[in-house]
Each structure stands twice: as C-alpha cells, then as structure tokens.
C-alpha cells in the first residue's frame, strides 16, 4: 500500500503541481502594479474645488487622526509600474517617484522630504501629506 502511495509517478505529479503553483505565485507577485495616486484636499467647510472622495477612501481617511471633516479629490493619476521600475509623479506641487519593488511592495520617494517603503496590496492604502497642510497623496492599487 505504501509503495503504491509513494510511487514515483505520484511523487512526480505532486512535484510538478507544486512547481506550477510556485511558478504561478511568483508570476502573480512579479506582475505590473496598477496604481492610483490621488491628490486629496481636506476641509472642514463645503468646497467646490474637486470632487468628494469615494466613500471607501473617505471611510479610511476619517479613521485617521486628521483634523478635516471632508476630503476632495483635486487630481488623480492611474498608472502601471513594472517590477523594479519607477514612475515619476507631480501632485500638488510636490514631485514624487513610485517604485515597484515586487511582491506588491512600493517605495514612494517624496523629493527633498523622504522615502516610504510599504506593502501595498489591494486592501491597503498609503496616505502622506504634501506641501499644503491640508493636502495629501492617497496611493493604492487601482480597482
């Protein structure tokens, strides 16, 4: 019984399956990242400039320790970044570079300010402030 269970054919099939699974996983991890960067302005007053952020983003922003009651999208960019590739952006007068590190990790470099390395899966959002006190960049994977 054990001989047939651990037969060479079954072991070979199992190894092949694992290799295919590993290959598929590696391929998924190294595919291009489709990202969306939004310049969001926070305000405590009704604002005509920009459009209100999506309810999903609004919920996330309102849970953060920020002093604004409403958030509006001033500009938005969707782009794809290949693994180990970078995309340069200019949002709200701030220059930044987004690099795909692979494995759904990104490196956001804000010129003359700093660098953030963060995993950015579908359910994750990265928020950082830019020049104006009520201006933020919301970076996440595009839907």
């Amino acid at each position, binding site marked *: 019984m054990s001989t047939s269970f651990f037969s060479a054919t079954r072991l070979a099939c199992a190894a092949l399956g694992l290799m295919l699974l590993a290959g598929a996983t590696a391929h998924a991890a190294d595919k291009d990242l489709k990202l969306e960067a939004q310049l969001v302005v926070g305000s405590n007053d009704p604002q005509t400039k920009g459009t209100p952020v999506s309810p999903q983003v609004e*919920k996330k922003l309102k849970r953060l320790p920020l002093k604004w009651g409403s958030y509006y999208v001033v500009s938005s960019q969707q782009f794809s970044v290949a693994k180990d590739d970078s995309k340069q952006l200019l949002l709200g007068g701030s220059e930044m570079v987004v690099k795909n590190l692979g494995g759904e990790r990104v490196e956001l470099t804000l010129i003359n300010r700093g660098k*953030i390395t963060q995993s950015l899966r579908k359910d994750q959002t*990265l928020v950082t*402030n830019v020049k104006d*006190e009520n201006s*933020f960049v919301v970076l996440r994977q595009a839907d």
Partner: protein
Amino acid sequence: MKLQAFLDGELPAREAREILTWTQRDREASSLLAELRNTRQALAKSEPHLSLPESREFFWSKIEREIQRLEPHPVAAPPPSGFAALRRWFFPAAAVSALVIAGMIAYFQAPTAAVQTVADADAPTVETTLANSDATTYRDASEGTTLVLFSYAVDNSPVKNKKPTAIN
C-alpha cells in the same frame, strides 16, 4: 528327535516330564542330552552377528525423525499481559493524540501568527531626507491604511493633536 525337542522346549509338559525321567534313568540318553546342550551353546556363541542393511525408506524416515527432533517446537505464546496490551494500544494512541493536539494548537495559533507576520510586513519604513525634518507614522490595521506625515513646520501640522513620535 524327542531329546532335541525337549531341549528346545517344544514338548508338552507331560512328555517333557517323561523325557526328563528317561534321561535320569538312561545314562546314554543323559550323555546325548548333554552333548546336544553343549552343541547348542557352542553354536549360539560362535554364530556371527549379522546386521541387515537398512532399507531406503527406513534411512530417510530416520533422517526425517532426526530433523523433527532437532527442530524447535513452537511454543505456545503466553497470553499477553495487561501491560503489554496497554503498551500495544496506549503508545500509538498517545502518539496520535499528541499529533492531534499539536495540529489543533498550530491551527488555532496560525491565524494569530499570520496576522502578526503580515502586520510586521506591512510596517512601513520611513526615511527623511532632511536632517531637521521629522516623520510621524500612523497605521490603521483594520482598514489597512498607513499615514505618514512629514513635518515642515510645527504651525502647519494637519494632525488634531500632533505627537512627536509614531502613533500606532
């Protein structure tokens, strides 16, 4: 002939008594009986001892009997003692139970460990470019949101109650 038969013990008791009486009375008969007895004894002593050759069947049957004699006879196994029965079933059962318990512990601990691992992997790494700048990090694990606030000037702080260190 009667004397020879008497000597061989083949005569009936009555005739044997008559012969015995006759040999006691007749000297010639007595000497003849003695001679026959001597001859018989001499033949008995000088007769060569002949051994019959063994037959083929007898030879092999003898080997078979010898083999059977030398073979260890199966000894009836003693009835298993209570400890032996306990050892036979208890140890495997204990091993299986230990494996099940270990599996349950791993199963119930795994989600926590996985969350901790993911949480550690999700922790952002922040580097500030300027020497006098600072960065504050806030993580909302339930929503998967990370906020990184770079400080420019204290007056421009967008945080409700800004703290100089990381909020988590």
